[in-house]
């Protein structure tokens, strides 16, 4: 048993903290709220230079060959700094999906482009609609050697500023009731593809993507036709853990902010942090942050490690526990943050509101608490 980070992870954590404090201060995050792309291409390239975009890509595909625990440590810092951009979608969900589903040729052609930051890619993080046939609204029909895509995909983060997007499209089998779900990697500048903003809480960038007879070649499919759900499941687990890390990192930051404020804000002739009513809210948030962090690390470790007998362990239960807890943490951090900052945090100019708005997005993405409690109930055999 060793519940501490290793030296490399400690170094990554420290480096990321220092880099983001210098290169992605909250003032930049605020500035980018009104920019065209919604994120900084310059920062994106620097993160690529640090190896962050390819952290989860094996070395022979141009990445840094890190495991999920490494990426978890990084995403705590990403969440803390609220780094704008489709980082979770591209460096986790898409990368892990292609690693599981892509051909060797695709992996060695596509992944280095993502790792280097030359090509930005995105995919849907919201809920489970991506691999749920019942909510399918994007259809693929055979068109010569390739396919024609028709329909709409929603909740695509940063779609209008990404070069590529990973989508799931369905095609009908021999009977109307059989639907094959297949992964497609589509260029944003494809003919017939348009994006429209979905105005969201905290000005989070996500889009509706319309496909009008978008024709793609046979090499646009990732993995076997009909295999989407199988390929997405492990990538989804991986990404969910990182979404938890993002929440843990941001909640820790919120806790630091309220503690600092409580020490300095004087009312009734004393710092408000000397009142137990304030202290106890901070203590509850500390407890929730610690719990969610342990659950997140546990899930990351479980995903990373095979059992003693060499078989891959199923991490479904640990991932569900982690995201259920992280979701609750997200709500508590918002409540405590706004409760203690009170009036000033209700103003747009104060940063607290941005932390809480982004917390809400993070809570909804990769399945909310209710969804993961349902998954957990299944794991428990209920």
């Amino acid at each position: 048993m060793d519940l501490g980070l290793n030296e490399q992870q400690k170094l990554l954590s420290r480096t990321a903290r220092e880099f983001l404090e210098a290169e992605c201060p909250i003032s930049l995050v605020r500035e980018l709220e009104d920019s065209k792309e919604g994120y900084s291409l310059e920062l994106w390239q620097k993160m690529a230079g640090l190896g962050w975009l390819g952290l989860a890509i094996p070395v022979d595909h141009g990445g840094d060959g890190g495991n999920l625990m490494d990426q978890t440590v990084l995403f705590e810092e990403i969440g803390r700094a609220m780094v704008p951009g489709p980082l979770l979608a591209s460096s986790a969900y898409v990368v892990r999906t292609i690693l599981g589903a892509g051909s060797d040729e695709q992996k060695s052609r596509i992944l280095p482009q993502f790792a280097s930051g030359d090509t930005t890619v995105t995919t849907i993080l919201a809920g489970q609609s991506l691999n749920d046939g019942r909510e399918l609204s994007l259809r693929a029909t055979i068109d010569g050697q390739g396919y024609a895509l028709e329909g709409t995909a929603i909740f695509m983060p940063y779609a209008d500023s990404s070069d590529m997007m990973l989508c799931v499209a369905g095609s009908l089998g021999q009977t109307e009731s059989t639907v094959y779900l297949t992964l497609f990697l589509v260029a944003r500048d494809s003919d017939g593809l348009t994006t429209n903003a979905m105005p969201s809480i905290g000005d989070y960038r996500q889009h509706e993507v319309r496909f009008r007879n978008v024709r793609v070649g046979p090499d646009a499919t990732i993995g076997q036709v009909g295999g989407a759900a199988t390929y997405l499941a492990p990538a989804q687990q991986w990404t969910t853990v990182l979404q938890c890390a993002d929440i843990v990192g941001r909640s820790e930051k919120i806790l630091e902010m309220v503690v600092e404020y409580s020490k300095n804000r004087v009312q009734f002739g004393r710092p408000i942090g000397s009142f137990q009513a304030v202290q106890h809210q901070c203590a509850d948030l500390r407890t929730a942050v610690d719990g969610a962090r342990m659950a997140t690390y546990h899930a990351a470790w479980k995903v990373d490690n095979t059992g003693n007998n060499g078989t891959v362990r199923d991490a479904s239960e640990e991932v569900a526990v982690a995201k259920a807890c992280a979701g609750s943490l997200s709500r508590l951090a918002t409540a405590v943050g706004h409760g203690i900052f009170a009036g000033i945090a209700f103003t747009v100019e104060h940063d607290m509101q941005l932390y809480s708005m982004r917390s809400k997005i993070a809570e909804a993405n990769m399945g909310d608490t209710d969804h993961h409690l349902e998954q957990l109930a299944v794991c428990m055999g209920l």
Partner: protein
Amino acid sequence: MNFDFSKEQQSFKEDVRAFLARRVPPERQEVFGVEYDGQYQFGREVASELAQRRWLAVGWPEEHGGGGKGPIEQAIFNEQMGYGMVPRTGITGLGFVGPALMVFGSLEQQAQYLPPIAASEVEYCQGFSEPNVGSDLASLELRADRDGDEYVLNGSKMFTSYVYNADYMYLLARTDPQAPKHRGISMFIADMKTPGISLRALPYISGAMAAQTFFDNVRLPATALIGEENRGWYHAMTTLDFERSGLERYGRTRRAFDDFVEFCKTTGLNGRVISDSPTVKHKLAEIKAAFDVWSLLCWNVAWLQSSGAVPNAEASVAFLHGTEQRLKFAQSAMEILGPHGTLRGDSQWAPLRGTIEGIHRESMHLHGAGTSEIHRNIIAQRGLGLPR
């Protein structure tokens, strides 16, 4: 990072589990809230056998009668004692007195007191709280006045758990009433047979029997003083940080939860299997998530100890989370069972031998080792550095 035990630790865990499963059959297991006749004596017999295997104090050094292993092994053992619902004896000695003596006791005191604790030959009770002193423990009033080679004790202690089986009391008393309150307290071990000690029974709602303990000119030899005179408060606070992983409490509560989940899956109520209700599923999943986190927080404390750190706010985090989630479990389980949940273990209609009714009472134990509010104060002040 590695959440697995080593091979040796894993096999130790399996050995303990197998031994306890064999030695403590279901009819002997401790059900929450029910005191069966002879359970204490049975618990002592089991503890003696565990001591012979050097498992009882597995984390203690061998020269004190322990197993010579570390905090992880001790935590594994404690969790299994809880999960096995073993009638528990000797916890004050093993959890608090032993660790205090190892740090503050003289070599003579260590040799005198430690081996009998590790061998389960003695029972201790704790004398901290008093009628006027709970959370504000440093204001305690029990006097210990030096008189030649002796200390003379006058006053009383409250909430003395395990006292009816205790050979000794490990206590705090005021030795210097003029000093600032934290600096006038000393720690003692009192033989319960000393003349002048008397008890007033104080039954707990959990079913356990405790007492108020009175001291009327009780004369203790000067050798009963542990550590430095007037440093008792600091000794006690340091000691409290040792046995803090809380895995036994977790294990015992977890067992009740696991049994309850199984019950809900296999039992009909109001025309359907209990766990078929979406509300029930949701509640059980919520508790499962919270309990898994509880376990991780406890192991974090044990691991910190094993790496040489002294957990403080971390231990309060684990303890607070556990107390709150145990209460939530008890409340949810009572809701799920409705009127059936209110039946005590001595009713033939009681589900799970009344353990849900019992844990409901037990879950109102929101105060031992510090109330939840005290733990929040510790987390806020010592952990987060907020002003007092």
